């Protein structure tokens, strides 16, 4: 049944919501503020569901992916600026995720980090070259579901559920307002990372969506990102229950896996690491494809994994070059988590000009006919555009003022 084809939504969401930066950020937010910031995840999840549904609908009805709409609506100059920013963010994130894959493999195997980076790059290249898109979706989307062990871990850690529930109501219970804002803006920015919509909309075209699949699009957006949000809750709760007030700042993937390892033992730890491996692997796939989609769409090249490798030559070459560049970046030994935090700086430029064209095209009756945005989509779309602008304007000042969250 087609309605069960939700791997695209799950992969886009797991890759976007619980990639290496978010994993650390969510747990660190829990370790620093307990459950106080849970409400921010809710705000982020609703935003990404609204815009993913919208860009999936545009893709299904008009056959346009996000960077087609950026080029059309922002024009050449502003579109090119968005492209450059998007490509820098995407490449930095790809490098970070590859580093994450290597860290996971090292934790699982004990082999040297640099060799595992090389292994990760080769494995990704071979998978993308050989495996069909729908199987890539399934392998990484469903593999990432191992992360649900964090939900079990969160329950087993017996958090104060009253405090957890209170976390869903926006409130401020700290002296360090700036740090609180930094985490809030960071969580929102991470929830609405531009590459999620690049990948999701192009993936809809890869999957051959037509207006008949609009129900499927809605289910993908709701369940995929809903699940991504649920996993973020679980991670933040484990962070709060394990580390709050302990003076420990979780800053590595190994520490994060303790969220399942402490309450559930060896099996929990293993499942957590495998889940993280698939999530960062999935995020590598998201960003790798996104980079190639964006460039090809902006320049009008043939693109997509639904073509053969030789059927879309410049698209194929683009992802190959991105893999080589990512290899060079991670091999320098740069900390992958730091890299994703700095990627936020550039995503600030790409954020508004990614989301505004989606909203404009989704309202264009000439393409969308009777599938144009309804009132709810438009109200939420505009509200989130304002939120995105606020995030864009405040992200860099907050980063500087809080010394990248170090206080």
């Amino acid at each position, binding site marked *: 049944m087609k309605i069960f084809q939700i791997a695209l939504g799950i992969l886009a969401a797991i890759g976007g919501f619980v990639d290496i930066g978010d994993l650390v950020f969510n747990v660190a937010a829990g370790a620093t503020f307990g459950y106080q910031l849970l409400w921010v995840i809710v705000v982020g999840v609703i935003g990404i569901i609204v815009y993913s549904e919208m860009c999936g609908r545009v893709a299904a009805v008009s056959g346009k992916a996000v960077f087609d709409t950026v080029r059309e609506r922002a024009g*050449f100059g502003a579109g*090119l600026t968005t492209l450059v920013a998007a490509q820098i963010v995407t490449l930095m994130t790809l490098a970070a995720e590859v580093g994450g894959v290597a860290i996971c493999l090292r934790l699982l195997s004990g082999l040297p980090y640099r060799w595992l980076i090389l292994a990760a790059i080769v494995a990704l290249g071979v998978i993308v070259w050989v495996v069909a898109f729908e199987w890539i979706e399934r392998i990484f989307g469903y593999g990432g579901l191992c992360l649900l062990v964090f939900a079990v871990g969160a329950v087993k850690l017996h958090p104060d559920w009253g405090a957890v529930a209170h976390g869903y109501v926006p409130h401020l219970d700290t002296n360090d307002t700036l740090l609180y804002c930094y985490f809030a803006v960071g969580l929102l920015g991470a929830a609405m990372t531009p590459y999620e919509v690049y990948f999701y909309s192009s993936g809809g075209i890869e999957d051959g969506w037509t207006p008949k699949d609009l129900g499927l699009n809605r289910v993908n957006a709701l369940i995929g990102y809903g699940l991504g949000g649920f996993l973020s809750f679980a991670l933040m709760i484990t962070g709060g229950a394990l580390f709050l007030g302990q003076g420990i700042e979780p800053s590595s993937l190994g520490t994060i896996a303790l969220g399942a390892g402490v309450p559930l033992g060896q099996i929990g730890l293993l499942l957590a690491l495998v889940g993280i491996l698939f999530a960062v692997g999935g995020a590598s796939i998201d960003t790798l494809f996104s980079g190639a989609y964006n460039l090809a769409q902006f320049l009008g090249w043939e693109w997509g994994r639904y073509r053969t490798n030789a059927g879309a030559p410049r698209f194929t070459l683009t992802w190959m070059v991105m893999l080589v560049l990512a290899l060079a970046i991670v091999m320098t030994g740069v900390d992958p988590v730091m890299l994703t935090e700095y990627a936020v700086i550039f995503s600030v430029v790409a954020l508004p000009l990614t989301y505004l064209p989606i909203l404009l095209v989704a309202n264009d009756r000439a393409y969308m006919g009777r599938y144009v945005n309804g009132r709810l989509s438009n109200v939420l779309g505009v509200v989130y555009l304002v939120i995105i602008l606020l995030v864009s304007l405040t992200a860099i000042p907050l980063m500087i003022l809080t010394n990248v969250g170090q206080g």
Partner: protein
Amino acid sequence: MSEELDLALAILDHQLLDCEGRRCGNVDDLAIEGGPGEGAEVVAILSGPGVWRSRSGWLGRLAAWVGGGGRVRVPWDEVAEVESHVRLKRKATDYGLGRGDDRLRPWIARIPGADR
């Protein structure tokens, strides 16, 4: 403004598809003719990095330089249909569109599994 001109301006920056549905470039600019007192008329679609030079100042010139400066002129009569993409009447190669993909294809095709 004529109806045709309206339509043409609306397709600026849109995707070009050939008669087989192949993506083969964008509408990077339009060639418009007409003197004072006459109606303006769109005579061709312009596509390729060379066209970017006239768009967006130094950024366009830089992009054109990086892109190699090639340009293709497709007469307006060759437009078969304008929907969400712009569909042309013949194959991309007949217009000289999509040459970058065509040049690169034999190299990619040498790698085992390229037809997957």
